[in-house]
Structure formats: structure tokens, C-alpha cells
């Protein structure tokens, strides 16, 4: 009797699962495993697949473009993640204080995030235009005769891309923080007020600890998203000038779909995966010290 019920449940379960799990196994599970195997081969997608051992991975060590891309991705992450998150928290805290017109402010700050990166990028490209763009027009009007050439300059290009990426993502994190802030009980602040705690001390001793699970989560998300930047780089700079804005995912794209080195590109993708995994694990380890789940 029991086994009959079990068989029936199993049949029902798999019937419901079928449409999704079929696609899942073919288009997601299989590719994840396949690219791991491909990363140990030399293959251009058409010819024969040659086993290459670890050579793709060792090649990464001496590949200067990869090293530069990795470094750029690291710099981008180190600068844009803290800047974005701090600005997003401040914006969320300010909006949470019951300002009039919260919805208008929230919409304004959120607007860049719902806009396609491509539209965002073509606009910023004009704003950054070194000779005619409004940004340098403004700087010249302030008396700066030789303003930076932004995206066209090897020194400023990475910084310029980072600014756009911060601008583009603040709204997203702000919305998450706003949701988190709304979950903090008001009486905590009332009690602190009575104890004579100032606003800064309230922020440090109530807001931040209570928000720490959301912060923890956004730090992880921010780092992952920052390592995966592609659209912005593709439209703004194509990795240039030189290799000054070449980033990991852009490098993977070029290697796979312009040079057709599938094995090598897969190795890069797995390195990206490993980096994300390690950073996430480290944070999970460290979370006990500062994340407060109450």
C-alpha cells in the first residue's frame, strides 16, 4: 500500500517537474559540467577537441591581458562596491526618515537601475565626450583649461566606467536597504532617544547592527555583480583605450566569441567562478563577527 502511494507521488512529482527539469538539465546543468571539461581542452567549436591537461590554467599565469583584466576587475570591485553601498545606505536612511515626497526621491534614485545599460552607456559616452561633452564644458566654465579626456584617456577611463556603474546601481541597493530599514522596530529608536543617544550613535548602535543581514547580503551581491560587469564596458570603451578598462567577463567574451578559444575561455570562466566562490565563502566565515541575526 505504502509503496503504491509512493509510486503515485513520484509520478505526480516528476510530471510537474518535467517541463522545467528537462530544460534545466539540458541548458543549465549540462553546460556547467561541460565547460569544466572543455577547460582542459583546446577547441575552437568546430575542429577536433584536443586534450590539453592543465595548460589552459597555466597559460593564465603568463597571460598579460588576463592579468590586467583581473586587476581591473579587482580595482573596480574595491572602489565601486564600497562607494555604491555607502551611498545607497545613506540615501535609504535619509528617505526612511519620513521626508515629504519620498516616492519622488525613491523613483529618481531608482531610475538609472531600471534603464537598460546600453541606453545608459550611450548617454554617458556623450556626457564624457572630451571635446564637446557637457561635463568638460562645465569644467572649462569653472576655469579648468585641460580637463581629463575621460573614456579616451588611459588614466581616467577605468575611473569613468566606475562612476557610471555606481550611478547605475545605487538605486537597486537603496531599495533593498529601504526594505531592511522598514523592518527595524521604531521603539528601539524611542528608547535610545530617552537614553539621550544622538543621531550618529543611533545610526551606529541601532541602524547598522539591525541592518547587518541586509548589508552582508548586499556586499556579496555587489562583489559578484561587479565581477560580472560586461555591457557597460562593451559599449563605453570596448576594454580600451589600450587595455585600461579590460575586465574579466569582457576578456572571456573576446576569447570565446571573437577568438574562438573555447577551452581557454572556459578556464577563465571557471577562474571567475572560483574567485566569486572563495570571496563568498570568506564572507560567510567572517559574518559571525559582525552580522546580527536576531
Amino acid at each position, binding site marked *: 500500500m505504502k509503496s503504491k502511494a509512493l509510486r503515485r507521488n513520484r509520478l505526480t512529482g516528476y510530471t*510537474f517537474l518535467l517541463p522545467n*527539469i528537462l530544460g534545466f538539465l539540458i541548458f543549465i546543468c549540462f553546460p556547467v559540467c561541460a565547460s569544466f571539461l572543455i577547460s582542459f581542452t583546446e577547441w575552437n*567549436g568546430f575542429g577536433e577537441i584536443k586534450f590539453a591537461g592543465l595548460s589552459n590554467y597555466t597559460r593564465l599565469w603568463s597571460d598579460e591581458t588576463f592579468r590586467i583584466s583581473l586587476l581591473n576587475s579587482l580595482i573596480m570591485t574595491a572602489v565601486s562596491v564600497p562607494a555604491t553601498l555607502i551611498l545607497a545606505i545613506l540615501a535609504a536612511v535619509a528617505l526612511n526618515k519620513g521626508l515629504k515626497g519620498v516616492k519622488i526621491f525613491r523613483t529618481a534614485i*531608482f531610475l538609472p537601475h531600471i534603464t*537598460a545599460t546600453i541606453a545608459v552607456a*550611450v548617454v554617458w559616452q556623450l556626457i564624457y565626450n572630451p571635446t564637446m561633452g557637457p561635463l568638460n564644458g562645465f569644467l572649462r566654465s569653472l576655469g579648468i583649461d585641460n580637463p581629463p579626456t575621460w573614456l579616451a584617456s588611459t588614466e581616467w577611463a577605468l575611473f569613468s566606467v566606475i562612476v557610471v556603474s555606481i*550611478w547605475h546601481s545605487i538605486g537597486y541597493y537603496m531599495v533593498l536597504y529601504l526594505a531592511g530599514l522598514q523592518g527595524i522596530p521604531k521603539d528601539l529608536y524611542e528608547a535610545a532617544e530617552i537614553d539621550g543617544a544622538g*543621531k550618529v550613535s543611533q545610526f551606529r548602535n541601532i541602524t547598522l547592527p539591525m541592518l547587518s543581514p541586509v548589508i552582508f547580503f548586499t556586499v556579496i551581491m555587489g562583489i559578484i555583480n561587479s565581477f560580472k560587469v560586461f555591457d557597460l564596458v562593451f559599449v563605453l570603451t570596448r576594454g580600451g583605450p589600450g587595455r585600461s578598462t579590460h575586465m574579466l567577463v569582457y576578456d572571456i567574451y573576446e576569447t570565446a566569441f571573437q577568438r574562438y578559444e573555447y577551452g581557454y575561455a572556459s578556464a577563465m570562466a571557471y577562474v571567475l567562478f572560483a574567485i566569486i566562490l572563495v570571496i563568498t565563502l570568506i564572507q560567510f566565515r567572517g559574518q559571525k563577527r559582525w552580522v546580527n541575526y536576531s
Partner: protein
Amino acid sequence: MSTRIEASQMMTIKRRPQLGEWVRKTVVYVVVSVVALSMVLPFLWMVSASVKSEAEIFSFPIQWIPSHFFWSNYSKVWTELPFFTYYLNTIKIAVLTTLLQIITCSTAAYAFAKVKFPERDKLFFLYVATMMVPYQVMMIPQFVLIDKIGLIDSHWALILLGAFNPFGVFLFRQFFMSLPEELSEAARIDGLSEFGVYMRIIMPLIRPAIASLTIFTFMHSWNDFLGPLIYLNSDVLFTLQLGMQHFQSEHATEYGPLMAAAVCAIIPTILIYFLAQDHFVEGISAGAVKG
């Protein structure tokens, strides 16, 4: 009650904080306004540039309201470019991806949440594990697969790859788990088939989740760039994002029409935002769970 009185007494004794409060509020308003303005300024500039002549776009100081409106920038976008085709392509891909995703993800989630069978949790773990994997890891084998089925340069490549998102399964399962078991049990006793329970009892109860996932997936698909870039080669199949990028690299000097194209491309997403603000925010917060 007594603490309230104490608090109000303290407020009357100390007058200063009230002035401080006023100053603080003003400062917050000013700062928030500046931040909000700097977020919106590029959009205003874009809209203004989209109706300007090439010469006026770059005049400084910026003329926010052009001396002469160049509506021809817009007509150029719609007549000289296959922009209408791009629009239809994008809508088709976004709608079909979203629809398929809602169907396949909700049925799968139903199995994971409401049907008991031995391999269930292991399979679900597999789903969750793949949510951690960045898209770039699957990109190459997916391309080879799609090539083998002969779907390169077809919208179905993008629709198929978007239809089985594990995140959708995860999201729906969360919602299904929050519904009491007695509900589906009672419906089964009343003689409803398992599919009936799913369709008539469970699905109507999770409308908010459906709305959130719909918006999330639709926006994601609408704004996707890397997917169309890899899979679409023919101009007539391009999505808005890809078409705009092409326009940008091929007509590098026509800035007015480029800005008009950008405005046209973002209007639908902004409209959706205004129509479904709350679902939108929910979708984003829920979407945040995705790796």
C-alpha cells in the same frame, strides 16, 4: 505610558534639539535633492538632446529647452531604422520567456513544495547550487548546444535559454511553502486532481509572486544585451539593445537620433515601473536572492 511623559518633558526642557532638528532636516533635504538630481540629470540631458539639432546638443552652457525642436530625430529613428522591428522582437522574446518561465517554474516549484517523493530535496539542492554559478560558466556549452540544434540567429535561442531559470523555481517554492498544507489536503479530499489543486487553489493564492517574477523576468529579458549579442546576427532579428548598439557604432555622428532611440528604448521599462511600483520593488528585493 510613563516613558512617553518623560520623553515629552525632556523635549520641553531642552529647546535646542528642535532648532537642531530643523537644521538637520533641511540638510537632509538638500543632500537628498542633490543626489536625486544628479541621478536624473543624465536622463534630462538625454531627453533634451533627443529633440535638438546636432550643433545644439553640444553647445555650452547647456540649453535645456532647445531653440528649435528637432522632432525629425524621432521620425528618423522610426523610419530609417528598423526600430519598429526591434521593438516587436524585444517584446516577443520578453513575453515568451516570461510566460514559459512562469509555467515551468511554478509547476516545478509545486513538485518541490507540495509533492513528497524521495529524490525531491536532492534535486532541489541541485537547482539552488546552480544559482551560484555565473552565466559566463555556462555560456560556451550553451552556445555549442544551440548551434547543434540549429537555433543560432533565432529568437528561440534566447527564449529557450531564459525559460528554465532556477531562480524562478526557488522563488515560487518559497511562496508555496508558506501556504498551509491543509489547504491542498482539503482540496484533494474534495476530489480535485493534483493538477486541479495546483491550478485552482495554489496558483490564485500566489498572485503577488507571479507579478514579481513577471516584472523581474520581463525587465531582465528586455534589458539583456550579452544574450542577443552572442546569438543574433541578422539585423531583422535584433532586439532594441542590440539595435541601439549597432546604430551607435555605425552612425557614430548622429547623436540626436541616437538619443531619441535611447529614449524610445527605455520608455516601456519606466512605464512598467510607474504602473507596478510596489510589485517592482518586491521583484527587485526577491530578485536579489539570485546569485
